[in-house]
């Protein structure tokens, strides 16, 4: 069996409004599958249907060959979850929580080893309420893994973590995948999806608008390049615009930005060289996954909110 999760035609409504409509995708065993999209795109609802926490209104879901709505008991034994905003009792100690959750599973992992792996050993006697955001997040990852799941669903894995903790968590998740666990990662943090995921489904308004590898998504959305430099002498913009595929030229202060439809760096530098112009601080911007994301989730979505959110997450 190579398919870990199969979703076909998933539809879910709340109070008359459709939050997920006709969503289909497959997750292969052993891959890290990313689900990205703006807030309210239906990401969490989709994974909650996979986890068996919500019943789909229509569609067909199989996780490890099981129906989440019907085979909940067996599924919960084999599927680990990290939920958004799920806390523990404030006065429960880290070690107690891990020991408690390990008692829920037939073949649990060694919770002490897990605590060590997530760097929580020094916090074993610390109450949940006294943990930092990063420590809480690591504990919730540990709880998701304590049942030795075959598939683990992580919702907003690194939200609230500082950059170092975020990188450590990424390394950890790669280690989990390398041991054979299938990982489904819900995120709105592009760098995370780009770094970790084998494939990404981009959600928008309850639908999947694209599904591919991060590199293919970035390349497919927009092949344009931006070439920026500071010429040491004034240059004639019309000559630049005359080049094939050059779409525009902007000048701001001493800096010139050339927007091209394809890879035009060579043609631009040749032109400059012909005029004996030296291009200082030459820089080329390629489309990134983030550009692809903005392009895919479209003009109706306010990109400022997404970007502002990410900035606040980094802090």
């Amino acid at each position, binding site marked *: 069996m190579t398919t870990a999760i199969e979703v076909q035609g998933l539809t879910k409504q709340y109070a008359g409004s459709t939050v997920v409509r006709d969503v289909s995708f497959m997750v292969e*065993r052993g891959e890290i599958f990313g689900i990205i999209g703006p807030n309210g795109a239906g990401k969490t609802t989709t994974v909650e249907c996979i*986890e*068996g*926490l919500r019943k789909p209104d229509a569609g067909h879901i199989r996780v490890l060959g099981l129906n989440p709505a019907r085979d909940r*008991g*067996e599924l*919960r*034994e*084999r*599927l680990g*979850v990290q*939920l958004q*905003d*799920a*806390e*523990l*009792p404030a*006065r*429960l100690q880290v070690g*107690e929580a891990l*020991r*408690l*959750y390990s*008692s*829920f*599973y*037939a*073949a649990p992992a060694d919770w002490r080893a897990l605590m060590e792996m997530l760097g929580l050993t020094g916090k074993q006697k610390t109450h949940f309420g006294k943990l930092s955001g990063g420590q809480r997040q690591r504990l919730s990852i540990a*709880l998701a893994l304590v*049942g030795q799941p*075959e598939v683990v669903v992580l919702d907003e894995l690194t939200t609230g973590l500082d950059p170092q903790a975020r990188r450590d968590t990424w390394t950890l998740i790669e280690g989990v995948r390398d041991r*054979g666990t299938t990982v489904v990662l819900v995120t709105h943090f592009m760098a995370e999806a780009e770094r970790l995921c084998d494939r990404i489904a981009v959600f928008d308004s309850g639908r999947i608008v694209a599904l591919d590898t991060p590199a293919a998504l970035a390349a497919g959305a927009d092949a344009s390049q931006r070439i920026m430099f500071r010429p040491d002498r004034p240059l004639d913009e019309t000559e630049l615009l005359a080049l094939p595929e050059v779409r525009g030229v902007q000048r701001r202060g001493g800096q010139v930005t050339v927007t091209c439809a394809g890879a035009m760096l060579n043609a631009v530098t040749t032109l400059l060289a012909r005029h004996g112009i030296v291009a200082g601080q030459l820089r080329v911007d390629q489309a990134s996954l983030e550009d692809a994301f903005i392009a895919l989730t479209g003009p109706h979505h306010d990109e400022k909110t997404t970007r502002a959110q990410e900035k606040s997450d980094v802090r």
Partner: protein
Amino acid sequence: MSADTATRPAAPRPRPPALRRLTLTELTLFLRERAGVIWGIGLPMALLIVFGNVPGFRKPVSPAVPQVSVLDSYVPVLLAFVLAMIALNVLPPVLAGYREKGVLRRLSATPVGAVRVLAAQLIVDAGMIAVTMIALLVVARFAFSVAFPRQPTEFALAVVLAGLALLSLGLLLASVLPTSRGANAAGAILFFPMMFFAGLWLPVAAMPAALRHVSQATPLGAAVQAMTDAWQGHWHPLHLLILAGYALAFAVAAARLFRWE
């Protein structure tokens, strides 16, 4: 991975240790939280010891029944106090908080599910109530010569029905109030009038007739009356019926209204 799959049991079931571990965890949290220990266990015990040492409490409660002292008539009120404190001021905020903070949702995603944490919480609350009541009875008997109930079976029945009624009311509060803070406030607001009708400030026997009738119709008033009857060897099924009615009504309402998230 296929070998791993093959060694897994075909239909894994929640193991018995899970409920035991959950119950021990809830007990630890109850003791660590301290409010329940201080107000639900410490305070009634302290009141018993204080009242037991006040000479006025050794006098007959009324000339008609010279063998029943004021202290004797107060012990059932203290037992009701324990019940109300834990069922109304500990249980609702804990469970509403578990729902509010996603503790229940997180448990729903594990093989044991969230129902067992409810069970564990009820076991701990009922256990703490029982232990405290027994401790009060024993201290009252051996330190202050308050006799044990003359009809132990009826007394036990009254306590069990009162416990069911109050714990169901606590569950109902946890069901309808979305936050821990709200449940806490509602529990405290209910606690005082209910304890008034139980006779905490004014003995039921000293209440005007109209008030006494109201008292008997409230859960804690009926509980105190039923316990007092059993203590003194009387048998009034009315109070037990009232308690059973409350237990049923609150339990059905709680079961219908409870939300997991």
